[in-house]
C-alpha cells in the first residue's frame, strides 16, 4: 500500500512551486514511497515523554543592540537581479492578493 499518491506529490509540488512533468511525478511518488517507508520508523521511539530537539546547543536570549549598521548600496542589492527598473527588482506580474 502506497504511503504517498501521485496526486499528493502533485499537491506537494504546487506547495513547493516546482512545475513537474507527469513522469517526474510518477517517479517521485514511488521513490518517496520507498523513502517514507524507511524513515517512518522514527515513530517507533518518538514517545510522548520525549521532548523534541530544535537546536543542538542550549543557547537562549541571543540578541543584538538596536543600532543601525551599514546597508548594501542599491547597486549591490540589485547586482544579482535578473531584471530591474527604477532601482527596484523587476518581476513578472503578481496575480492574487498579498497575505
Amino acid at each position: 500500500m502506497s504511503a504517498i499518491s501521485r496526486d499528493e506529490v502533485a499537491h506537494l509540488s504546487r506547495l513547493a512551486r516546482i512545475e513537474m512533468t507527469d513522469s517526474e511525478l510518477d517517479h517521485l511518488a514511488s521513490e518517496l514511497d520507498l523513502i517514507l517507508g524507511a524513515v517512518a520508523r522514527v515513530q517507533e521511539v518518538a514517545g510522548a515523554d520525549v521532548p523534541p530537539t530544535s537546536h543542538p546547543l542550549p543557547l537562549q536570549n541571543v540578541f543584538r543592540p538596536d543600532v543601525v549598521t551599514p546597508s548594501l548600496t542599491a547597486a549591490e542589492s540589485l547586482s544579482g537581479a535578473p531584471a530591474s527598473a527604477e532601482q527596484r527588482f523587476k518581476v513578472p506580474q503578481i496575480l492574487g492578493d498579498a497575505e
Partner: protein
Amino acid sequence: MIHSTAAEMATKLAAGEISSVELTQQHLDRISVVDGQVHAFLYVDTEGALSQAAAVDAKRVAGEKLSPLAGVPLALKDVLTQKGIPTTCGSKILEGWRPPYDSTIVSKLKSAGIVILGKTNMDEFAMGSSTENSAYGPSHNPWDLTRIPGGSGGGSAASLAAFEAPLAMGTDTGGSIRQPAAVTGTVGVKPTYGGVSRYGLVAFSSSLDQAGPCARTVLDAALLHEAIAGYDPRDSTSINAPVPAVVAAAKKLDVKGMKIGIVKELSGDGYQAGVRSRFDEAIEELVNAGAEIVEVSCPNFEYALAAYYLIAPSEASSNLARFDSMRYGIRVGDDGVRGAEEVMKMTREVGFGKEVKRRIILGTYALSSGYYDAYYGSAQKVRTLITQDFAAAFSKADVLVSPTCPTTAFKIGEKSDDPLGMYLNDIATIPVNMAGIGGMSLPVGLAPEDGLPVGFQIMSPAMKDDLMYQVGGTLEAALLRKWGSPILSNAPALGAN
C-alpha cells in the same frame, strides 16, 4: 612544494625561502595540469589568488606580523559566499551569481592572509554523498578517476588528494566533510555545531550544517580550524566561547590513559571487509599508544539515518524556497505574459536537480499539516534520544570511534539510481550532526581488496574538539611511523590532462 604539508609551507614562507606568489603559482600550475581529469574546481580565481598572494608577500617584506598560515593557498567549497566571485552551490539555479558579500569564513581567511585559489565542486546544495549531484558534472577521485571522491564536498577532498591545494574548506551536514576525506585518504573535521560561523554558508539544513577544515594532515586541519573558528554575532547559533586549543592538541602525540569508546552500533556490521580490518588495526595502534578501549552502546543510533532524512529535507525545503528567480539566479519562462508564480515554478523545475527536488518534496511532506507530528516532530524526538545516547557514552569514554563509512570509494554511476543505497554512506557520520558534537575522519590505510583509502572517525563531546585532534594526531603519527611515508604517496601520480 605542492606535496608538502601546509605547516611545512608556512614555515618556508615565514623563513622567506619561498614567496606566496611562487607557491600560489605552483598550485595554479598543478590545477591546470590535472584538474581536467579531477574536476575538483568549478572556478579558479587566478587573478584574485595571485593578488592576495602578492599582498601577503608585501606585508611580510614590510615586517608586519602575520597569521600562521599567511600565504598558504586554499580551495573553497562553492557553498560559501565570496564577494564578486561566482558561487553556485553546485546548482544551475545559481549559475552566474556573484554574491555582494563575503561569508564570515572568507573574511577570516582573508584576514589570515590565506590565499583562496577558487571554488570547489560539490553535490548540489550539499545534498549527496558522491558529488554526482553537481549540475556541473562530478569530480573524480585522484586515487581512481573512475570513482567518486565522496560528497557533498568531493571537490575539496579531491583537490587535496590531487595536490591542487594543501588546505580546503568543506561543510558537513551528515558527513559531507568526513566521508569525502575517508574515500580520498585525507583529513576532514566537522567542529562542534556553532564553533564556526554559518554566516555566508548557503543553508541546506540549518540545525545540522557546519563548516570545517580539510587538509592532508591533522596538524594542518588544526591550523586551519583555529583560523576560521570563533564567535560571530551575525550567527545567532554561534558559540560565544574561546576556540578550543586544537593546534596544541594535535601536537600532543599522547593518548595515555585516555578512554576510547567503540560504538557497538557503528562497529562495522555489514561494512566492507577492508574497512573493518583497517579500523581494527587502528584501534590496536591506539592501545599500543596507551589508550584504554571501552565498549559503548548507543541503541537509538539505528534511527539516526531515518531522522536525518526527515529533518534535513524539511529544513532544506524551507531554506531553498528563496530560489525563485525574483532577486538573483536564473530566471526561466519570463515572456512578459506569464505571471510570477509560473515563472517561479518553471525556474525551480529547470534550476534544481533530481536529488534536490526529491528532498524538497520529501521535506514539504514531512512538515505539512497532518503529517508534522508523525514525521518531522518524531524525528526531532529521535534527535533528543541520540544526544542522550552520546551523553551516556561520553560518561564512559573521552572520545568515541568508528569507521567513517561502510565502503571505500565506489564507481561513478554505481549508486545513482539507488537513493536509499546512497544514503547509507552516511550511516556512521550522521549521529554526530544530530547531536551537534565534533567529528573527524583521518586515513588509517588502504583496503587490501581494492587498494583504496579507508577512513577512521573520531567523535568528541560538544565544545571539546581538542580531544579528537589529540587522538587523531597521535594515531596519524603512529601510522606514519608504521608506513614510513604518508598515505597519499601511494596514490597514482596524475599526469597531464
